[in-house]
């Protein structure tokens, strides 16, 4: 049920400050797209415009279109709450609900949306935890608080929580930046599995990671500090890392700046 994302002419502001300007791109369903670029280039901001999380920040507003299978997320009559159900998100730092058990964390999204029987909930929680490669590690302590897990486990718990509501798209904002290498590897493996079912967009600072997990890579940059970030190019990952068409991309990838 993965969906395609079609962005055209998207500009986002924080108050009067323009954070990103005139971004257009297409993200294919059942693929992994990585966003790379120097700090402050707006890739996280752009990611957050894809599920209308940007407007949660005080002063945040957006111009332009984001089509999710031909439906504009910013069209009139669109309910941002419904958008976020369709487009799930995993954050930089693992953020399980601290007062909830592992089970309740995964079930949290489902419980929002009506009445599930206990057995149904059990099934979905198990399926989601398996989908996040966490089931074997936590199946004996589902009623313990989620905050007792290790960082990597917590992040996979957050992924399980996000996929439990069966979103069409999964956004990941530097999901491994707070994790150790082994946990990072586990998440990267997981991303490879999840792309069979979801459209995945991932922001990363780690270019090897982008090269390892993504099918397509988008490079963002900004002309100077205080200037809005722009999309420089988007292409197949292989091409971006071997033979990019823009000089700035090559400079960035080969470590000549940023």
């Amino acid at each position, binding site marked *: 049920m993965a969906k395609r994302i079609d962005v055209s002419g998207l500009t986002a502001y924080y108050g009067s400050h323009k954070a990103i300007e005139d971004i257009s791109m297409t993200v294919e369903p059942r693929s992994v797209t990585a966003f790379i670029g120097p700090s402050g280039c707006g890739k996280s901001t752009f990611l957050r415009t894809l599920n209308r999380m940007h407007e949660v920040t005080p002063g945040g507003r957006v111009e332009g279109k984001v089509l*999710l299978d031909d*439906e504009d*997320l910013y069209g*009139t*009559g*669109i*309910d941002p*709450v*419904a*958008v976020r*159900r*369709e487009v799930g998100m995993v954050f930089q730092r693992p953020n399980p609900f601290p007062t909830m058990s592992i089970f309740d964390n995964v079930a949290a999204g489902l419980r*929002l*949306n009506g009445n599930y029987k206990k057995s149904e909930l059990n099934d979905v929680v198990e399926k989601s935890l398996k989908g996040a490669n966490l089931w074997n590690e936590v199946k004996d302590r589902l009623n313990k608080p989620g905050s007792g897990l290790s960082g990597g486990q917590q992040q996979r718990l957050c992924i399980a929580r996000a996929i439990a509501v069966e979103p069409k798209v999964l956004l990941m904002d530097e999901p491994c930046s707070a994790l150790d290498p082994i946990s990072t590897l586990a998440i990267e493996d997981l991303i490879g599995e999840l792309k069979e079912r979801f459209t995945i967009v991932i922001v990363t600072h780690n270019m090897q990671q982008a090269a390892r997990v993504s099918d397509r890579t988008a490079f963002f940059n900004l002309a100077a500090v205080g200037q809005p970030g722009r999309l420089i190019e988007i292409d197949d990952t292989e091409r971006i890392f071997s033979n990019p068409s823009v000089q700035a991309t090559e400079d960035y990838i080969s470590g000549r700046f940023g």
Partner: protein
Amino acid sequence: MSTAAVTDKRASSLRGASLPTWTPWAIAAGSIALGIGISAAAGLHSSIQWALIAGLLFVLGTYGIAARVEGRRQARDRVATSFVWVAFVVAVVPLVSLIWVTVARGVKVLDLYFLTHSMGVVADTEPGGGIYHAIIGSLEQVGLATVIGAPIGVLTAIYLVEYGRGRLAKAVTFFVDVMTGIPSIVAGLFILSLMLIFKMEPFGFAGSLALAILMMPVVVRSTEEMLKLVPNELREASLALGVPKWRTILKVVLPTSIGGITTGVMLAVARIAGETAPVLLLVFGNPFINNNPFEGAQASLPLYIYQQFANSAGSGAAYDRAWAASLTLIAFVMILNLVARGIARWKAPKTGR
């Protein structure tokens, strides 16, 4: 817009039928109109009644309409929103009423004569007289309390932040917290028990002692917070230059945080200036001018308000004086608050968020 929302409801999961943005205002206006209408029809006179009816209608109406159009979850969200707004309005009403009444009734007799004359030759039930003696009493009592309470409070805070390790500091911290919660009347009773033992008659300074007890924990808390804001690097830099610790505190730590400490002390002064209960027990009240806080009963502004209210047998003149004195007291407290906030903003450490 609404037709599109309805027709698309099946086609898309992203579109929820949503109420237009003016809906809450419309429901609010409707509820108020209905509330007044129902109250008028039923012959209810109290504004509290019709406000309650209107508030109830607003919350219920919001739920009903939203549940029908947008669904249960959105309805619950809207009810929470409207309850929060109603709570806010409910909290503002008494404040507005209080300020309004105090100003409206207070200005009736508040003039230069009122501020410069005592109640010495005026019976409580008759018009005339003033609050000069009460202002003198208040200033002296609060001033003496500050002279005692502020240094002890600041020094205790210095001890807790700069020296305090171990059990003594823990005990002091805990009891400062507990002391914050002592009812003012209990502080008054404490001094009263001493006065009973030493067979003393009421006098101004006894009130000051009780007020100082009430003031100390407030000053300790605020000063502590301010001292904690001073970065450790500053202290270390000074110590590393060979400056002794006490001079480091006096020359580096205190000057850095003096703005915040002053603010805290002023807020504490504002708080004790309005205390009535200990003054009632210890200073007793006096219609005449008594400039000596160490001998004989004195008046004070809050006590004056209470006595004008309580001893006047419903006389309008006494109520007018009570309101005028309230206005004076509120003005004094508010000015202290404003100045304190001004100092806090002016001297605020630049590291704040």
